[in-house]
Every structure is written in C-alpha cells, then in structure tokens.
C-alpha cells in the first residue's frame, strides 16, 4: 500500500470512527449517568437520517435540515425521557432492555407509516461536492473532511460542557451520587432530561450528517447500534473518553480489515472486541 492510499484510508478510518463516537458517546452518557441500557439508540440515528432526507426535501438545504432536525430531536428526546424513560431509572436492567427493544419495533413501524419503506438518498451539498486530488487518481471528498470536522467540534464541545461548565459539574455529581446531589438542591430530574435529550441529539446529528454518504433506509439503526455497543464495550461502559478511543480503534480495524483482508470484513471488529475483553474484561477505560 503506497503512502497516498495509506493516508486516504487513515482519513476514512478517522471519519468512520468519529461518526461512531457521536453515537457511542450518547449511548454511554445515558448509561453512565442514568443507568439506562438504551437499545433504541440506533433508532435515533435512523430518525436523524430520515429527518435529513425529509427536511432537505422541504427546504433544499442540508444546513437548514440539520439545524431544524437537531431542534426536533432535542424536543423528541426530552418528551421521550419525560413520558417513558424516567419511570425506568430504578428498574432492573432487564426491564429497560425490554422497553427499549420494544421501542425499536415501534420506531421502525412509525418510520414505515410516516415515510415508507423505500431507500432514499440525500444529495451532498453543492458547495461541498468536490474532491481534493492527492495523486493522479486518488482524491478525497471534501464532504467527508467537513463531516469529520463537525464531529471533532461536537466532541470538543461535549468535553467542555461536561468538564468545564456548572451544568457539567451537576451532571457529573448526579452520576456519582444521585441522592446526595438531590439533597444539595439540584434538580436531578431536569439534569436527566438534559442528558437524555443531548444523547438523542448527538445520535440524530450523526444520522443527519451521515445521510448523504450512507443513504437512508429501513433498519439502518440496527447495524449501527451493534457497532455502538462494540465501541462502548471496548471503551469501558460509561466512559466518554473510552468511547472516543474505542471508536477510533474500531474505525481503523474496520477500514483496514475491509481493504487488507476482505474475507473477514464482517468479523474484524468483533475479533478486536474479543481480544480486548480477554485482557481487559471491563474495557479499556473503566471508570
């Protein structure tokens, strides 16, 4: 493999890894802070992608779609937490798994009723629809670079929010000791709503920016959900930093696995997970 090809494949890995991180961060935040195992997280990704397709059709602009779509996702997440999830914080994990597994079916059905079962494509915005030539026949699409940039910006924002702001401090305190935090007069219910909506928004944004490159299709949430769980397990359940490292690692293994040993393309990531579990059963960054 020559240098230019290697460089592009590294960019491909990074872009896939960052996208996975957006999803896994929300998943692991919701688990780490509220203790909820959310199997429906992939559905939020699918929701994002379908929203992107629907809104681009209405407004003819991906930026407008993403802004509007994010707001809708936040409202949706907030409502869902208020109506459903908050009743399940103290329940057994098995109850949560059943609830969120059921939700997957409900969301799929709603998607089918609202938007049908067809495969859709979202065009890459005109302005970003070009490639940077790296050698005579290798080039890298600008849209993917921008995508990676957006993911990095959001990851940075998330880091600052959690480690540097008052809200972040309260979130961390609530995750550490719920009763103590409540007794200090902090509205933990509100905090949970915020965190859940944040997680949903991250997944939906991932779905929206991925829509032009991955197309929009029924069941798209489930395949990505499995990858998210792999990332969370490798990174250590509840650790956002672990999710970042694991997502980048999964991106690398998946991309180079596909290219170098296509025979095991589907397995490479699981083999990585098995290896990690063998030596670090609690994941790389257990808190």
């Amino acid at each position, binding site marked *: *493999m*020559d240098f*230019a*090809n290697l460089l*592009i*494949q590294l960019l*491909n*890995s990074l*872009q*896939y890894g960052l996208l996975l991180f957006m999803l896994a961060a929300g998943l692991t935040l919701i688990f780490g802070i509220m203790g909820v195992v959310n199997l429906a997280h992939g559905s939020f990704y699918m929701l994002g992608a379908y929203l992107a397709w629907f809104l681009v059709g209405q407004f003819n602009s991906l930026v407008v779609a993403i802004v509007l779509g994010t707001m809708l996702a936040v409202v949706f997440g907030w409502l869902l937490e208020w109506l459903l999830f908050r009743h399940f914080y103290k329940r057994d994990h098995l109850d949560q798994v059943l609830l969120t597994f059921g939700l997957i079916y409900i969301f799929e059905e709603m998607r089918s009723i609202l938007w049908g*079962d*067809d*495969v859709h*494509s979202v065009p*890459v915005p005109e302005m970003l*629809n070009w*490639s940077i030539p790296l050698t005579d*026949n*290798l*080039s890298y*699409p600008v849209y*993917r670079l921008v995508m990676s940039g957006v993911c990095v910006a959001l990851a940075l924002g998330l880091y600052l929010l959690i480690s540097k702001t008052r809200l972040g401090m309260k979130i961390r305190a609530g995750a550490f000791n719920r009763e103590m935090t409540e007794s200090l007069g902090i509205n933990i219910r509100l905090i949970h709503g915020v965190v859940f909506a944040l997680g949903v928004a991250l997944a939906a944004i991932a779905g929206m920016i991925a829509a032009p*490159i*991955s*197309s929009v*299709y*029924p069941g798209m949430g489930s*395949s990505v959900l499995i990858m998210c769980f792999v990332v969370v397990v490798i990174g250590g359940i509840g650790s956002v930093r672990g999710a970042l490292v694991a997502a980048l690692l999964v991106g690398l293994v998946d*991309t180079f696995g*596909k*290219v170098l040993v*296509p*025979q095991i*393309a*589907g397995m490479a990531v699981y083999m990585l997970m098995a290896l990690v579990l063998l030596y670090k059963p609690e994941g790389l960054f257990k808190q």
Partner: protein
Amino acid sequence: MTTRRIVLTRSAAVIGAASSGLLLPQIVRAQSNKVRVGFMLPYTGTFAQLGAAIENGFRMALNEQGGKLGGREVEYFKVDDESNPAKGIENATRLVQRDKVDVLVGTVHSGVQMGIHKVARDTGVLNLIPNAGVHIATRAQCAPNVFRTSFTNSQPTLALGKAMVANGHKKAVWITWSYAAGDEAFEGFEQSYTAAGGTIMKKLGLPFPNVEFQALLTEIASLKPDAVACFFAGGGAAKFMSDFAAAGLNKSIQLYGSGFLTEGVLEAAGPAANGVLTTMHYGDSLNTPRDKQFRLEYAKAFKLQPDVYAVQGYDTGLLLIKGANAVKGDLNNKKALYAAMEGAVIDSPRGKWTMSKAHNPIQDMYMRKVENKENKVIGIAQKAVADPATGCRMG
C-alpha cells in the same frame, strides 16, 4: 339464481360437515373444482414492487387463457412473505396445509426460498420459483417438483467474463456484499473471466447490506484495474454507482455488473449510472415483436412499464399453462405434468428458453448498457447459458 342456490346448499353442506366433525378445508376442496394457486411473495418492504410485478405477470399469462388452467377455474391464495427468512417455513406450510394449494409460486428472497424449498421437498407440492437465484435449489437439492423460471445467481455473471475480456478489460477487481447471493454471483464471474484469460486482481467485500463503500473505492483507485465487476441490488446498487462516479472512478475504469445492479434503480442512481454495462436475461429495449406485444399489453393492463420481474412472473404462468394443458387440468397427474414442464419451450418476451434437466432456464444473456435511465440491449453476451447444476441428481 341457480348460483346463489348452489352457494347456499353448499354452505349448508359445509357447515353440516364441519359440525359433524369433518375437517373443513378438505370438504371445501372436494367440492370446488378450482386449481388452487398460492402466491408467497413479498408484498411489503424493500422487495414489495418485485412481488407485485411477479404477480401481475403471472395473472397476465393466465388471463390470456381466459383465466383458466387446463380448462379449470383458478382460485388464488396470497401470503406476504415479508422477505423474512425466519417466517419462510411457517408461511409456506400455511399455504400448503391450510389452503391446500396445488401450486406454490414463490419467491424473491433466496433465504425465504430455502424455507419454501424445505416445505416443497417434504410435502411434494409443486413449487415454481419466479425469482430467487439461490444455487442449491436447482443443484445439490434439486427436486422433481421444483421449477425455476428466473436464473441462478451465477448465470448472468457466467456470461460476463468473456465479454469483458473481449472489450480489452483484462485486469479486474470484483466487489460485492459478503453473503450467499454475492458469493454465488462471484462463482460465475470467476469461472468465465479467468477462462477467457482475465486476471482478478482482488476480491473485495463488505457485510450485507452495508453501503459505506468509501474505503473499498479508495482501494480500487490505488489498484488501477481496467474494470470493476460487481454484484449489488436495490438501494445499495444505486448508492454504489453514485459513489463510484463521485470518486471519479467512472472516468478511467469501466464498471460491469450482474444485471441486478441496474434493475429498478436507474431513477435513483441518475447520471452516475450512464455507461454501466451489465449482463442479464432481459432488457428494456429488446425490440422483438414478442417483447413489444408483451410490453404493450402489460402497460395497458397494469398502467405500469414491465421489468424483468414481470417477465419472470409471466413466464411462470406460461410454464404452468404448458403443464396444466398437457394433463387437461389434472395437476395430480404429476408424472405427466412434470414431463410436460421439463420439455416446455417457453416463448418468453426475453426470447425462447428451455428447461434444463435440473429445472432451471437455459437462456440467452444480453449485454446491456445504461443510457438515459434505460437498460439498452447492445448485444447478446452469450447464447443459451445453462447453470452447471453441480450435484443435482433428479433420480
């Protein structure tokens, strides 16, 4: 008047029989002289349009006979198989046991087909496969009561390799989803391409139905092959052609594929599909009198343009008509029925074809080029392509 009276008396008889403890379906069957045809096709989901086209084609063939089979009226039963392999056996059993169908027509998805296949082998019910190309149904597990009117997954690609080398494309990369249909399509390609003197530089794959092709397209660009050959279908196919063009590969590398690459997705793929070459047993512009007549009649009947799936459904009907006419509607005369179907020459819109010993069409494969959202037939890639039928012992 008489019919109403007959219905009433029959209903009374049936209710009486049921209440006296006899099984209802058997009574109904004994009293009706209709041929029972069961459709087990996808009516919802990704393949819904395919299921509808197959049923349309089948009904059209029978309607040309006044809706009759060997002189007998036909009664239809329908089950949506949802393209869900997990429900394959259950759905097929329902049609055979509960509805007592004489013929089971289905299906599209190869995984579901394996469920139907098990039921067909266990019960001996006549099964006509209008699409699914899974090899084993007409190879190691071929059966006297199972007939396919479509293709095997490797049949289109068996005709691909020679044509590619003839076009001067001697170094190729193969890419597909890593699942049964992709592997089977590769088998045909590998055989014909290497036999013609071509070299397969690399075989790339990604999990089904993943559509993130970027890493693989980068790899293709760095390998610099003369051509890329592939097997994709449905939404993933449209996405692959778009991404292939977006990466700039279509300027220097000719894209070839099994015909499913461009079936039903040309609208979605847009200009990215222009110039793509595929091999298939049908094309939109065959321009034979037989095909023109079929297309006109189909368009009149269903207000839709027919596609390869409609043709396959139509041919399924034609095959059954040949069989039923030979036994004058007595589908229980299996020996004569199967013999007639085995010997049938089907005058199809795709061109005349015959049934192989393993019950799969021996048919011409066309070379098609995408031009303005149409699969233009530009020649015959190979005449009378037969599946090798490896391991089939009909006994």
